[in-house]
């Protein structure tokens, strides 16, 4: 409803300007005709003197709709600003994506080269390497410590309890010297058994402790049996 009203107002405004400019031309032509020109020549001359009617009409319209014109300019300006911002953002994003794509391509090439080099290695390249010992985790597996094994003790509740202890070697008699707990038989015992005993021994010194034994290396000593 309001839009229709605006359109009607605008139409009336356009007509008003057109009528006013036409009135000017008529008055001018009248003067020229009274000065001796024919009616047609007077009209033609009046139009020539007046100049570009459309330009003057547009200038009048701009003055009448100054606020609307300002708002229009502001809107155009904001839209232009938004478009520039969007373009800038898009360019920046695509540049970042291009850089990332290049980085990934480079990484892929490096990995491909590494893989090719790895596959080109002789088969016995890694035969001399020793893998770390397998951690005994399942009591039912029957795994036990042996003479010469190197182990470490840690407290699951407080890592600094045995912080200075370092590696502990299972001596030829099957015992190992633990901090505070003294000599404990380790050989032929599972991890659970050993940890159970250590828990009992450390209860004397610590209110809360959860000793865990970690195998560092398998040993190589010969067993000595004391008869």
């Amino acid at each position, binding site marked *: 409803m309001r839009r229709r009203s605006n359109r009607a107002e605008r139409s009336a405004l356009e007509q008003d300007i057109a*009528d*006013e400019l036409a009135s*000017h031309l008529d*008055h001018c032509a*009248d003067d020229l005709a009274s000065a001796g020109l024919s009616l047609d020549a007077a009209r033609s001359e009046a139009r020539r003197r*007046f*100049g*570009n009617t459309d330009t*003057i009409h547009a200038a*009048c319209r701009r003055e009448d709709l100054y606020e609307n014109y300002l708002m229009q300019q502001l809107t155009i300006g904001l839209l232009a600003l938004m478009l520039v911002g969007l373009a800038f953002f898009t360019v920046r994003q695509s540049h970042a994506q291009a850089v990332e794509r290049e980085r990934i391509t480079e990484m892929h090439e490096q990995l491909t080269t590494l893989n090719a080099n790895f596959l080109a290695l002789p088969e016995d390249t890694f035969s001399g390497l020793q893998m770390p010992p397998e951690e005994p985790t399942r009591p039912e597996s029957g795994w036990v410590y042996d003479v010469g094994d190197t182990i470490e003790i840690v407290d699951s509740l407080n890592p600094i309890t045995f912080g200075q202890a370092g590696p502990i070697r299972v001596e030829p008699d099957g015992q190992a010297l633990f901090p505070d707990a003294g000599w404990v038989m380790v050989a032929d015992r599972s991890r659970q058994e050993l940890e159970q005993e250590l828990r009992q021994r450390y209860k004397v010194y610590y209110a809360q402790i959860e000793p865990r034994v970690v195998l560092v290396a398998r040993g190589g000593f010969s067993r000595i049996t004391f008869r």
Partner: protein
Amino acid sequence: MTPKEPDVDLMPGTLDLMVLGVLRAGADHGYAIARRIERASKDAIGIEEGSLYPALHRMQRKKWITSEWGISDSGRRAKFYTLSDAGRKELDRRKSRWEATTRAVRRVLNVGGVA
């Protein structure tokens, strides 16, 4: 009747001042306003319609003048502009400023020995 070219460079706002001054004598339409200015200046000032009509619409927007359709002396329909109270105040303000400016310019010319 030949088309007139302005003989002088007008300072900004001079057209508004002249239109307001002409309208102080009474309401008139655009064409008559232009002719009255030209006659009053003894054809020294030519008013371009391209400037006059936008100026009239601008002054109407600023409520210095009001407009109303009527019949001119030649019996044609024309839009008549009338000076409003706000326009009268604006005219006085601009007139005193104009006079101060011309006095100042005259003084400068006298000191410089030009006039």
